[in-house]
């Protein structure tokens, strides 16, 4: 209370002080920009983007689950094809929720449980054959999720015909059991996360609408940038491309065994990032409050560069250059120097400082919050 009183005293002093000091200025400009309401931003994120994205993912996983049961029941080529397309659809849908690793997903460690690649083939085989495994163990993260399914659906033999034969045989049932277990693990985890979001965390997340390092916006923006930098930029592009290691690592490509969809998966992730930035409602063209509109509001006062536009332009450039690429595995394995992909990486990289420096400092959000004094 004392602080508040003192604050008042000071403000009245300020008012007195500045009206004197501004003698030469024509008028004090009263810009009536109502402060940007972070509550509206959080509501749009929660109700129109995050929860609908998880719902859609949940449906895709359900379809995947049904396809895996059907394949187990009748291990024929048609059912394998259905299972594969269900896998790809769910994998693409996953790219639209992978960036929401806060709250329930963070607690469950959803991202690492569902999409740790490269898959650990030895472990997948030993788990399948022994039937003795606990998918909740973090040591099994690389033996489950979409990357394990990638191996199981595309990597167990050389050709599609051989894969069909592999599953049709008596050993096949062991592996279909494991497929079912993995799919069910994805379903359980993602349904829990969705349920938590709908029953409680939505309110918690929305109500934490302040401006501290632990407020929803500050934390989420940190996570959002972290996802972009570590998972999208480095995980899907940079690491397989070898930019951190001196040599290319094509085995680290996402969906390595399938071999042709890594660029599509990346683009899904990139679009999810950009749509989120612009507050585009899930599966719609409607827009709500967003990081972009927040920047626009701040800019009305600051009259600086149109940062939202600059960031969107760079998203577009990055998307165009990745779209022009072949599948990443192809780019990496069939070029002595994968220069097109390196050039695309540079465009993807250029978004990082725009988000991490320009956006964050415009919003005065502390990045990688460090609990220390400033001056």
């Amino acid at each position, binding site marked *: 209370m004392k*602080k*508040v009183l*003192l*604050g*008042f*005293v*000071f*403000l009245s*002093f*300020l008012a007195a*002080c*500045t009206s004197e*000091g501004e003698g030469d200025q024509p008028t*004090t*400009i*009263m*810009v009536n*920009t*109502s*402060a*940007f309401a*972070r509550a509206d931003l959080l509501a749009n994120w929660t109700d129109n983007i995050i929860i609908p994205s998880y719902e859609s993912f949940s449906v895709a996983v359900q379809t995947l689950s049904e396809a895996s049961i059907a394949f187990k029941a009748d291990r024929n080529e048609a059912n394998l094809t259905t299972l594969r397309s269900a896998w790809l659809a769910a994998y693409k849908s996953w790219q639209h929720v992978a960036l929401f690793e806060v709250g329930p997903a963070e607690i469950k460690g959803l991202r690492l449980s569902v999409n740790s690649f490269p898959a650990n083939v030895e472990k997948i085989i030993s788990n399948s054959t022994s039937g003795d495994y606990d998918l909740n163990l973090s040591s099994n993260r690389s033996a489950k999720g979409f990357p394990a399914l990638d191996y199981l659906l595309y990597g167990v033999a050389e050709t599609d015909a051989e894969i069909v034969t592999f599953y049709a045989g008596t050993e096949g049932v062991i592996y279909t059991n494991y497929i079912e277990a993995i799919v069910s693990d994805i379903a359980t985890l993602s349904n829990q996360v969705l349920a938590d979001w709908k029953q409680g965390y939505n309110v918690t997340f929305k109500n934490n609408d*302040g*401006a*501290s390092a632990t*407020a929803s916006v500050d934390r989420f923006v940190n996570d959002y940038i972290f996802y972009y930098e570590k998972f999208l930029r*480095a995980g899907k592009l940079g690491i397989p491309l*070898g*930019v*951190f*290691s*001196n040599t290319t690592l094509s085995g680290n490509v996402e969906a390595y065994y399938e071999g042709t969809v890594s660029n599509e998966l990346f683009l899904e992730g990139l679009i999810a990032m950009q749509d989120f930035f612009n507050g585009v409602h899930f599966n719609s063209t409607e827009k709500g409050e967003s990081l972009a509109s927040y920047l626009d509001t*701040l800019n009305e*006062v*600051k009259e*600086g*560069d149109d*940062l939202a536009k*600059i960031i969107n332009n760079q998203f577009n450039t990055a998307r165009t250059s990745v779209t022009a690429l072949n599948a990443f595995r192809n780019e990496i394995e069939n070029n002595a120097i994968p220069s097109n992909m390196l050039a695309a990486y540079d465009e993807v*990289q250029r978004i*990082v*400082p*725009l988000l*991490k*420096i*320009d956006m*964050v*400092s*415009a*919003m*005065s*959000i502390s*990045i*990688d919050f*460090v*609990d*220390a*004094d*400033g*001056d």
Partner: protein
Amino acid sequence: MKSLINNHIKASTEAAPLAVFRILFGSMMLFSIIRFASYGWIEKLYIQPTFFFSYYGFNWVKPIGSYTYLLFAICGIAAFFIALGYRYKIAILVFFLSFTYIELMDKTTYLNHYYFVSILSFLLLFLPANCQFSIDAFRNPKKAFRYVPIWTINSIKLLLGVVYFYAGLAKLNSDWFLKAMPLKIWLPSKFDIPIIGDLLSEEWVHYAFSWSGAIYDLSIPFLLLHKKTRSFAFLMVVVFHVLTLVLFPIGMFPCIMIVSALIFFDANVHNKILESIARVLKLSRSSVNNNNFWKLGSRLKQKIVFSTLGLFFIGQLLIPFRYLLYPGELFWTEEGYRFSWRVMLMEKSGYAQFKIVDQKTARWFYVDNSDFLTPYQEKQMAFQPDFILAYAHFLKSHFEKDGHANVQVFVDCRVSLNGRLSTEYIDPKVDLGTIKESFSHKNWIIPFRDEIKGI
């Protein structure tokens, strides 16, 4: 001139303000150390990191593993002894050395107020702050003095005045005055502060805070000096620092400044403070009832002390202006930025991606900074050229030890200053591995594209 010396240096005055200052300073420092340790910052800032950013010429000052805790303990005990006035001379020397050592260990954590504590404790080395209301004076009445020469108190006032006035001078630039930067960025983000929160996104408030902040810093030393304005000035000190405490994460600094400003009050005020402390602690103040006058011993000693302090203050007045020796925009290059009371002047952040190149084969890879630096270190490194260079040198030697040959280090670094769009900061074609650190101008910094007018 003679009367000036008599009035401000030689004249006799009651020692009570000095005693109060000593007690409060010691207590504050003890509290600061305890607070620092209780937040786990010793571990986080000095034990966990594998690499430390040294000050130029102080490479030998490094954290000493788990003994670092001992260092902090010694510093805290010294602060406690200062407050008690127990073996004051040794306590203040130990405090000055240990505190300064701690600050020199890693410049990542540089704060103006830590520097202030270091130089203030240096000044206190020469002052008879234990001549009253101290265990020293109580145990040995020969060490108790009621009166001291007024320079002992005025030197503290002068130092405080320099801090405020220079902080005000530093605000006389176009970003601060004409653009209300960086407050225009910082204040709106504090919208959730009760009552005034909504006002903080109003543009006029940003200007009001910027202007009144500068006026405050420039005028407060003089308002505190004059008896007529002193009470008002002290109220302003309290209000100003409490407000900064509410708005910004600046730790103990506001408290230290509020307490320090008490030195400007007359001895009566301080005698009352001492009496009330005595009452609370049920102590008698009999030891100060003598009328002794403290003097610096021999002529030689006087000469040494006065010339040391003279040089010290000349240094304090000149050091903040060393930036004039460098070309380019100070806020951008930061050449001569530290140790100059430039407080809360910039919203600056950067992003630095280092590239390790084999000069012969032209093979290269990027460095993941989180392999070597804590998030805090990375953040501080990314917009300060001396950090970038030190880190580049570290990377070079690290990868050479790792078996890489012909290592070149390049950086792709972008920096944003006071709301300007981020631009390239370091020449990406310069192999930082070949650059020597020195006090001369760093010509590999890409010049600032805009202009900030003013001091």
